[in-house]
């Protein structure tokens, strides 16, 4: 049987800063190289909710402030559907701004509170221009049974995210700042939804995680266990080693 996947790319035109398109390219090619059909649905502002609910895997990136305001407004429109999908265990990757949107709120330096979708038990605070942005290469160990390799990425965020009791971090920071630079947590996991501050983009250099998302999406869709054919990852290993070496850590 030939498998097929529909990947929903939330706000590709507005939320695609920091090479986020690389995550999409990676998913498409890794499907193609295994003879899995994939289709990308571009979910731009005003998209129909039926388009969203037909997706098997969701991806959302980060953006500049002006764009985030537009997206925040549009996302409220499909809040119910998106929350249902997340609750049902449809896998998704939400990077930086996308990650923050899923939380309860985002508090700006002047005290303004921007409501999030509230589907994840977390909140984000930004203390403004006087507090340093958290920028740099980062490495964290994912707390997911199937993921055995540390994830290598690049973070660049002003907001500090704090997790509530009902949610687990994506991983533990080995080097870098993670959610807030204090508690060593990085990102969040809820069912099969992953939030992270790791750009880079995250998937090309961490193929184990890319394949995890593809596997989970297929398993959910076809309701059976699926094992993907393995692909050569030597370039990726080398790229990760270069960063590990520059950070003076072993991975």
């Amino acid at each position, binding site marked *: 049987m030939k498998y097929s996947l529909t990947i929903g790319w939330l706000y590709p035109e507005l939320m695609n800063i920091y*090479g986020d*398109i690389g995550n999409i390219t990676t998913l498409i*090619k890794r499907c193609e190289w295994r003879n899995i059909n994939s289709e990308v649905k571009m979910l731009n502002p005003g998209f129909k909710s039926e388009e969203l609910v037909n997706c098997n895997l969701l991806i959302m990136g980060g953006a500049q402030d002006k764009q985030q305001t537009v997206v925040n407004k549009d996302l409220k429109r499909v809040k119910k559907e998106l929350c249902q999908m997340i609750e049902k265990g449809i896998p998704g990757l939400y990077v930086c701004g996308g990650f923050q949107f899923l939380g309860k709120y985002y508090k700006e330096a002047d005290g303004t509170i921007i409501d999030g979708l509230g589907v994840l038990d977390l909140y984000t605070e930004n203390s403004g221009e006087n507090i340093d*942005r958290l920028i740099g290469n980062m490495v964290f160990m994912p707390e997911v049974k199937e993921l055995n390799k540390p994830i290598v990425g*690049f973070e660049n965020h002003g907001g500090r995210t704090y997790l509530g009791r009902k949610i687990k971090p994506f991983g533990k920071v080995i080097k870098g700042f993670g959610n807030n630079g204090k508690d060593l947590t990085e990102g969040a996991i809820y069912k099969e939804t992953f939030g992270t501050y790791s750009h880079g983009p995250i998937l*090309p250099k961490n193929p184990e995680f890319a394949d995890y998302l593809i596997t989970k999406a297929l398993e959910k869709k076809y309701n059976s266990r699926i094992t993907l054919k393995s692909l050569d990852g030597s370039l990726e290993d080398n790229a990760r080693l270069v960063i590990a070496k520059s950070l003076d850590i072993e991975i």
Partner: protein
Amino acid sequence: MRLVNVFLIVFGKFFIFLSKFTNLGSGSTWPGHIALKINPNFNKQLLKSTNAVKIVIAGTNGKTTTGSLINRVLISNKKTVAHNQAGANLLNGLASSLIHNSNTLGLIKKNYIIFESDEFALPQILENINPDYLICLNLFRDQLDRYGELDEIAKKWKETIKKLSKNTTLILNADDPLVSYLGDGRKNTLYFGLSEKENLKRIKHGADSLRCPKCSYMLTFNKVYFSHLGDWHCEKCGLKRPKLSISNFKYYPLPGIYNRYNILAASLLLLKERYNERQIINGLKLFTPVFGRQEKIRYKNHDIIIFLSKNPTSFNESLSTIKDLNEKNLMFVINDRIPDGLDVSWIWDIGIERIIDKSYNISVSGDRCYDMGIRLKYAELFTHIEQDLKTAIDKMISGLEKDEKLYILPNYSAMLDIRKILLGRKLL
């Protein structure tokens, strides 16, 4: 003239001489750095007494080429010019340039001062220089880890421009919405842009400012020349590309559509300075590409041409230009040092697979060669990966047929490394 400045100039000149003599570098920022530490008003005081016409050039891509084009035409018209060294484009670079170009009494007896300004430093630079001309070329995504977001930069620029003297002539790229908006409602502003047919082969992804700078509504483009540059308007608030003062010139010394903009900006300024078309063309004919901007270097009996490519837009445009020249031997070199930005994720915003195919001979090198290797793996292009730069260049060169050329696309620090290997020195 204050005594302390005389001391700083003499000391600085000695330092520049010493660093050139010992080949340690060109001394392009340290003397200025020290001068400003001792006297923070050094730049303003030196500039007060000069009669030179002062030109500041800002923008993500094309500053050095535009500055060099203007410089070339001025020199060919027997004018004297002080022009800061490429890369030394912060306040300390300005101070160093002034030290280098003044006499020991602190007088700058030049007809023109050209200063290429860093995007982030522009507000300070303008406050120090108070220029006769400010050219703003474009704003593209570049080094988000250092510069922050584009909208932020544009906002800061706009605030600074509001404070500029009315006598400053603004020369703006009308095709770039964010840049064009800098002149909104301001007199003494001239615009350059293109009016030709669009090249539909060009890539539109990576377009940075698609929202109206005034009301944030999605912009409509009648034509796109590349990235987000084109003939635009806003359906909601009616803001549109302003009327162009220049859209074509008789002579273009460099290939590439991005260079058309640089040449138009330079020509517009020179025309405003009352040089006629013939004088400008004669000057442009003497122009030779410099410092990694289509710079040609002879190495082991082959021509190597360096196309500095430091962000998605410049990379796409370099690649498209080389493709138009029917050249096939390419090398991409990518580092992640401070001047490059530590974040190399922008390589995923390059549309490599939409510009070139498997018929190209590609090699990859630099600190982050494996990241670029992965990028090309996903473009399904075969590449040679060699982390050591000299080995990588030598291998590529030894594989070339007679008369074949090598085109290298490096980011900034990689470009310096390449010049060091090919010429024995990083800077000019």
